[in-house]
């Protein structure tokens, strides 16, 4: 059975309106292999897999399963062909238990009674067999991300799939959880399954895959066995010739040069015993204390949803500070409004750029000055000075290389990477003392990541203090001077550059260990 072809997709094309997301893409999957599917944001990885799973209807293209042609019109067809998919955003019913989520949609024998004891036992057995530990009777909404992902995988395994597609499965996992996931995948392929592992992280794909395919701009670039693949080859395939890998920050092994590592003495932001509570009064951020100095990038690591957003929003005046002290240059910022903070020289890159960061129907120029519209030079005796606004916008578009037909284009027409450039251009268009940046590179391709990193470092060298909240540990370890790890709203420890250790941070992220 080994090395026989399990599945083949041929000549797949899919367009959304006028945008061609996939063009003549082929993919061949062997049995008992982990196949890495690599590509930057917008390369078409997820679209291709959604076609395979019957979520998108392709314009053209054929799918062969064990050399027999199959028609997949809906996820139902995909499941009956033995194809399972774990989506990047988990598709779970929050208010259901693990078992209910797993059995949903299957033809249970005891359909009229919904007696799930037997199913629970089966799920328990499967979870032990594949090392995917869960408690079948807990409510899904109460589980951490790592466990919720196991539920997704069990959902597929319970249905007895031969092909398992994992879309960016490591995004919300600690390094330990990633390793245990990889071990589970190994068990699966040894039992004869095939796994497609979609990712944009090179190191992960190299460590776990048997073969690797790279997509770029909706087209195939290469497919290689792992022995023939190297980081350099894959990067070239992912980003084309535009990026100088040797000089790249994203792929630098040595880290930053000396100049970039200089940290100033004067503290800019001082936070003492910060508390943030939700509507019911339960603490979301508990007793956080830290200082950020000039020319310092202070990182906050953690699994999503451990208080990072609340921490950032409380410092930006979006959420009230419930207790403790926070001050910038010895001026207290407790109780200040966002507007006053912006005027003080604090600037913000929100996590969810689509929700909190920009106005989709407003044009690029309006988005570029959003928040600064009351300040010079955009504001002139109670009126907006549109000439000044467009002049500034055109300069920013050139400086930040924003791909847009004009400054009057509705911002929603821009791609994710370009929207993020708008966010950056806006954040950096005014002199700032402090930048609060939350996942500034999420979903960006390598070229754009590179750009964000170089801008952050450039500003750092000019003296800006940065609070960088990120779920990407590699990013934090590359850029930060110190990294705090946040777990359930509390700092589990702060590490200095030089003592950064991925696994130690991972343990702190999951609450197993605290430092100091």
């Amino acid at each position, binding site marked *: 059975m080994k090395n026989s072809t399990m599945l083949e997709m041929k000549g797949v094309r899919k367009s959304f309106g006028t945008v061609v997301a996939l063009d003549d893409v082929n993919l061949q999957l062997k049995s008992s292999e982990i196949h890495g599917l690599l590509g930057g944001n917008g390369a078409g990885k997820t679209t291709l897999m959604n076609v395979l799973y019957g979520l*998108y209807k392709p314009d053209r293209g054929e799918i062969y399963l064990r050399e027999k042609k199959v028609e997949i019109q809906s*996820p139902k067809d995909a499941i*009956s062909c033995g194809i399972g998919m774990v989506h990047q955003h988990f598709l779970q*019913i929050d208010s259901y238990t693990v078992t209910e989520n797993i059995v*949903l*949609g299957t033809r249970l024998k005891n359909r*009229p009674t*919904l007696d799930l004891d037997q199913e629970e036992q089966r799920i328990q057995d499967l979870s032990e067999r594949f090392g995917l530990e869960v408690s079948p009777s807990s409510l899904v909404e109460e589980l951490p991300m790592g466990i919720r992902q196991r539920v997704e995988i069990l959902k597929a395994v319970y249905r007895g799939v031969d092909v398992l597609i994992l879309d960016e499965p490591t995004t919300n996992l600690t390094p330990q959880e990633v390793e245990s996931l990889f071990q589970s995948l190994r068990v699966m392929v040894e039992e004869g399954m095939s796994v497609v592992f979609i990712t944009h992280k090179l190191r992960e794909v190299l460590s776990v895959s048997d073969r690797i395919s790279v997509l770029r701009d909706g087209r195939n670039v290469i497919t290689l066995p792992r022995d023939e693949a190297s980081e350099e080859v894959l990067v070239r395939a992912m980003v084309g010739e535009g990026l100088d890998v040797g000089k790249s920050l994203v792929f630098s092994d040595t880290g930053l040069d000396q100049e970039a590592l200089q940290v100033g003495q004067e503290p800019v932001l001082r936070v003492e015993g910060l508390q943030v509570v939700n509507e019911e009064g339960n603490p979301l951020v508990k007793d956080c204390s830290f200082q950020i100095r000039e020319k310092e990038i202070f990182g906050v690591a953690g699994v999503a949803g451990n208080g990072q957003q609340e921490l950032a929003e409380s410092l930006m005046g979006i959420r009230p500070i419930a207790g403790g002290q926070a001050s910038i240059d010895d001026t207290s910022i407790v109780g200040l409004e966002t507007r006053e903070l912006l005027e003080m020289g604090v600037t913000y890159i929100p996590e969810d*750029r689509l929700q909190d960061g920009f106005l989709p129907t407003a044009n690029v120029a309006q988005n570029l000055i959003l928040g600064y519209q009351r300040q010079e030079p955009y504001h002139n005796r109670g009126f907006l000075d549109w000439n000044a606004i467009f002049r500034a916008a055109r300069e920013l578009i050139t400086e930040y290389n924003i791909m847009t037909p004009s400054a009057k284009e509705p911002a929603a027409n821009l791609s994710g990477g370009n929207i993020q450039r708008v966010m950056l251009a806006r954040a950096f268009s005014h002199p700032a003392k402090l930048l609060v940046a939350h996942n500034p590179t999420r979903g960006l391709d390598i070229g754009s990541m590179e750009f964000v990193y170089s801008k952050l470092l450039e500003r750092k060298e000019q003296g800006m203090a940065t609070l960088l909240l990120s779920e990407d540990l590699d990013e934090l370890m590359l850029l930060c001077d110190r990294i705090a790890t946040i777990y359930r709203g509390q700092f589990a420890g702060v590490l200095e550059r030089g003592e950064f250790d991925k696994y130690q941070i991972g343990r702190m992220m999951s609450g197993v260990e605290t430092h100091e």
Partner: protein
Amino acid sequence: MDQFQMQFVSFARLVMLAMVPYVLASQGTMLGGRTGLFSVSQEGIMLVGASLGFLGAYLYGSLVYGMLLAMFVGGLFGLALAYFTTTLKMNQFVIGLSLFFIGLGLSTLFPKIVIGVTLQPPLIPTLPDVPIPGLSQIPILGDIFFNQNVLVYFAILLSIFLYYLLYKTSIGLELRSVGENPKAADSLGVNVSVMRYVTAIVGGMLMGLAGAYLPMVYTGTFTQGMVQGRGWIAIALTFFGGWSPHLIFLGALFFAGVEILALRVQVAGVGVPYQFLLTLPYIATILVMIFASRRVRAPAFLGQNYDREKRTLS
């Protein structure tokens, strides 16, 4: 039986009687809501149901025909809601409101076409009580629960059945999942559109029947606007009942109790203007919503349309 007991039994009997339209309309609302369809056309569908239920019974000489006609037309309204929102992906609230106004208009149009304008509207017989042999002999309880018209029994059995269906069968598990996260349901092979069409149509049928109940039990004829906001209250009631059949049943009892109480107080001649007493059910609605809204959980995807190929930005 002493005086107080008789008073109590007659009050309780009336509450059971008045509960029926609330139960039917709210369970219908709940069904659609559980697959994410939020209807606001209850009042309109109930009016059409009342109008056609009366006309069907009048023309064909049988209340059963009236009920069937009301359910058929209610089902058509449900079908329209499902088609416009699920297939054409139009805004649920706007479509629901349009259907309400269509129902409002049609409810007075039909009697004018069929009967014309008369000084003395024709009457239909009211729904008879059907005592259940044996059970109706139980003192007190027999009179309250087992000596009622068929739709009272139906409303009770329907609530029990829906509870069982939603929470104890795998069809119910699938149905609820559509209203919580249709994308997840879809990815597991649950047919979101079919679920929505079925619940919308069945829900509409129940609302139509709820309307037909009014001329058949209360008045014997159709009068303009005779639903008197019960359709709107049904929406509040469904929220109050946390979109679950058993709590909705209890909520319907509560609202029916308030309604009957208002009538009783009015008859007893307490020195309060009757217009004020008539507002009691609506005041109760607001009070109940204030307390209930924080505690209950509506289906997560309520009121939204699902489009499989919809792409988010980025």
